[in-house]
């Protein structure tokens, strides 16, 4: 796997997987999200404040991925809804079954408002040469995701750095539990990040 397949290099710079969220941005989820982190910002709870500062209700900017995740079940859909499909394409095409997200940058533009229908697309920006890290041997890649509203206004730019890899030796998971150290935590992070993205759209 020393060479990057031409199909993969051909993806670099391409706008892929344009999608629209399954439902409108709605305030119930905003309140649930605020409740989950005890966010008492009056911008999200006090309509007078929201009218005065933002011309009406808005959603916390960091919630952007919430609006684009598929439901666990959706009638007529076959298989699991995948988020960040470019990431999973890379894992498959490069033969790298494990992955972590090591960095994630969000740049916030127009506010997201209840009633918005969020659209997104993904662009692969770079794939590295083979690297060896303490997790294993693999490649780093950078994917950008652009989120827009139904009017075509840019809401958020997201730039994600992932590392797809093969585990060295493939040691058993329970030993990591007993060690209780960094390896276990990183393995958890790897599974969380990759799987979380699997459920995100």
């Amino acid at each position, binding site marked *: 796997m020393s060479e990057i397949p031409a199909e993969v290099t051909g993806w670099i710079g391409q706008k892929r997987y344009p999608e629209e969220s399954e439902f409108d941005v709605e305030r119930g*989820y905003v309140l*649930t*999200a*605020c*409740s*989950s*982190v*005890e*966010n*008492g*910002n*009056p*911008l999200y709870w*006090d309509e*007078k*404040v929201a009218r*005065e*500062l*933002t011309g009406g209700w*808005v959603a*916390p*900017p*960091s*919630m952007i*991925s*919430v609006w684009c*995740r598929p439901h*666990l079940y959706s009638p007529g859909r076959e298989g699991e809804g995948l988020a960040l499909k470019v990431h999973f394409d890379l894992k498959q095409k490069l033969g790298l079954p494990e992955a*972590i*997200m*090591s*960095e*994630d*940058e*969000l*740049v*916030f*533009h*127009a*506010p997201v408002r209840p009633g918005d229908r969020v659209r997104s697309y993904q662009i692969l920006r770079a794939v590295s040469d083979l690297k060896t890290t303490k997790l294993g041997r693999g490649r780093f890649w950078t994917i950008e995701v652009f989120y827009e509203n139904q009017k075509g206004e840019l809401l958020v730019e997201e730039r994600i750095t992932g590392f797809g890899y093969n585990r060295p030796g493939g040691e058993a*998971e*329970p030993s*990591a*539990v007993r060690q*209780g150290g*960094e390896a*276990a*935590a*990183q*393995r*958890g*992070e790897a*599974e*969380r*990040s990759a*799987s*979380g993205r*699997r*459920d*995100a759209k």
Partner: protein
Amino acid sequence: MSGAQNLTIDRVKQGQKLPELGCAVTATTVVLGALATRDWRPMHHDRDFAQVRNGVRDIFLNTPNLAHWFERYLTDWTGPKGRPGRMKFFMRGSVFAGDQMVFRGEVKQVETDAAGCGWATIDVSVSVEGQVMTSCTARMALPTAADDNPWRRRGEAWKP
């Protein structure tokens, strides 16, 4: 404005520390956070799955919810006029049910851009037992005066 306090950029200095925020993370914290971010994966609600399949000691916070924790921590400090412009996360480890997590922040840079928008760049981290699990560099827009409002900025006046 409903009594909410708003930090203006003139009251922010490089090196300024944000008040610490501590939170005892429970299973409810993790599960509520996962559901609030529509993350249905079992390692965020099923301890058996987390232990047996992931090899970790318990269920743990998911990244989108942790992002919201960071945003809450920052806007607790700024007040509602504080508008997030940019957040960059570096993931190092997980925060598990049963952990006591602590958020800390320090102002790294203060500036006013060409459009007159006030900006504070803050390094934020969440730690467990002194070990940083995720760090974040955030760029927050702050009002330059009591009558300024970063949320009104758009187009050329908003350069996050």
